[in-house]
């Protein structure tokens, strides 16, 4: 037992090589999902009727496809239409598209819960629509989105090992390599689990700290 623990602890540094990759994949996927998600959320609220239909179709499609399937479609499909991307980019696109559909819902919910009176109050002061969005709607939407966003970020983090499926050297891949030489899969995977667990906690508390930094007294934010 003690020997196993020591074995796990000594192997963690070897697996740590994959941590940076996992973080990169997670952060970039979430960012891609954020950019698309914000655009989709705004278009679904403020867009023309056809635009609203189009983007809700987009959400519906990407929420319905498992990440791994989407990842393979991107990885094996894009070369077929003449687009050759690195496996890394394929993973970011696959996870990012998937996440965008979920993030769109988070932002849309946040914007809708702000209510139209806030926009009218901004306009009635003589702010333009864009400036009201910027000074009034956005700061509130960011705060209201944070719990959902934190949740989504950690979900993407936990999905990042899918990158292993297209041969990217992240935590799981290094683990595999160790197992091949040591034949101790149980301990190695436990070490990997520990790393993910710690990463998860780190990001979780990071976002929590951000949330409390920008907390407005009495402003009700659901969840946590």
């Amino acid at each position, binding site marked *: 037992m003690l020997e196993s623990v020591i074995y796990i602890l000594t192997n963690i540094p070897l697996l740590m090589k994959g941590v940076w990759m996992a973080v990169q994949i997670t952060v970039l996927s979430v960012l891609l999902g954020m950019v698309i998600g914000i655009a989709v959320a705004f278009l679904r609220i403020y867009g023309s009727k056809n635009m609203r239909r189009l983007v809700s179709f987009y959400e519906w499609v990407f929420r319905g496809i498992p990440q791994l399937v989407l990842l393979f479609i991107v990885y094996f499909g894009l070369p077929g239409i003449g687009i050759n991307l690195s496996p890394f980019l394929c993973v970011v696109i696959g996870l990012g598209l998937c996440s965008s559909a979920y993030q769109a819902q988070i932002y849309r919910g946040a914007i809708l819960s702000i209510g139209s*009176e*806030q926009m*009218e*109050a*901004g*306009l*009635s*002061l*003589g*702010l*333009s629509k864009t*400036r009201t969005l910027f*000074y*009034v709607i956005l*700061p*509130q939407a960011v*705060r209201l989105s944070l719990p959902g966003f934190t949740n989504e970020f950690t979900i993407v983090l936990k999905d990042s090992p899918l990158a292993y499926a297209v041969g990217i050297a992240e935590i799981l891949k290094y683990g595999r390599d160790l197992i091949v030489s040591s034949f101790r899969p149980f301990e190695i995977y436990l070490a990997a689990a520990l790393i993910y667990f710690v990463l998860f906690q780190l990001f979780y508390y990071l976002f929590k700290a951000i949330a409390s930094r920008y907390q*407005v*007294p*009495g*402003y*009700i934010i659901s969840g946590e």
Partner: protein
Amino acid sequence: MPLVRIENISKSFGKNRVLDGITFDIEPGAVKVIIGPSGTGKSTLLRCINMLAPPDSGKIWLQDTEITAPHTDLIKIRQKIGMVFQHFALFKHLRAVDNVALGLHRVKKMNRSDAYEKAKQNLQKVGMQDHGDKYPAQLSGGQQQRVGIARALAMDPLLMLFDEPTSALDPELIGEVLMVMQKLALEGMTMVCVTHEMGFAKSVANEIIFMEGGHILEASPPAEMFNNPRNERTRSFLHKINELYGESK
């Protein structure tokens, strides 16, 4: 010359004709109180006056500018028309003083310290100088509404629009808001108020406008309206208000 001229405006939402040929003038310094049943278009009328809901037809002038004309600079116009909302509509992520300073700093382009100086003066006018650092959620409804008034007032508007400013308040908080409004009226502010506070109407309004079904059915000074309503509908509506809100003081 009237401050505002409203000429035969109409507005529909889909098939629902909410305003159907509304015409009246607002003289400088006038206080008009608009009453009428729910869904009659009172809020819509106010929102036409600052073009939050542009009318489908008809014209509105603010002084010598026709604000309903295409290409009117609404950003400029709205700075001259303050609006107070039924549910306060304070910016929830900002402190009271930030709420008041936002328009001064971002719209009127005052520098930060001047804007905050002026914001504090305006909070003082509504008796909220000690609460500038509080967020809306830390204030009572009456206090929030007074901040809402200060926010509009700080822009030095020519005209203030009030859309049922006290109807979301607990009864014991109504007085403090009405007092601020009364003070404003006495100082000569031009005001259009949708309200069913008949005590306020009696003591400060120059004219009460009774609306129903998108029309103005009757417009007359309070004394005349209360003592001798010309229209049968006005009579029964005033009767109903008395039952709902109690005999006006």
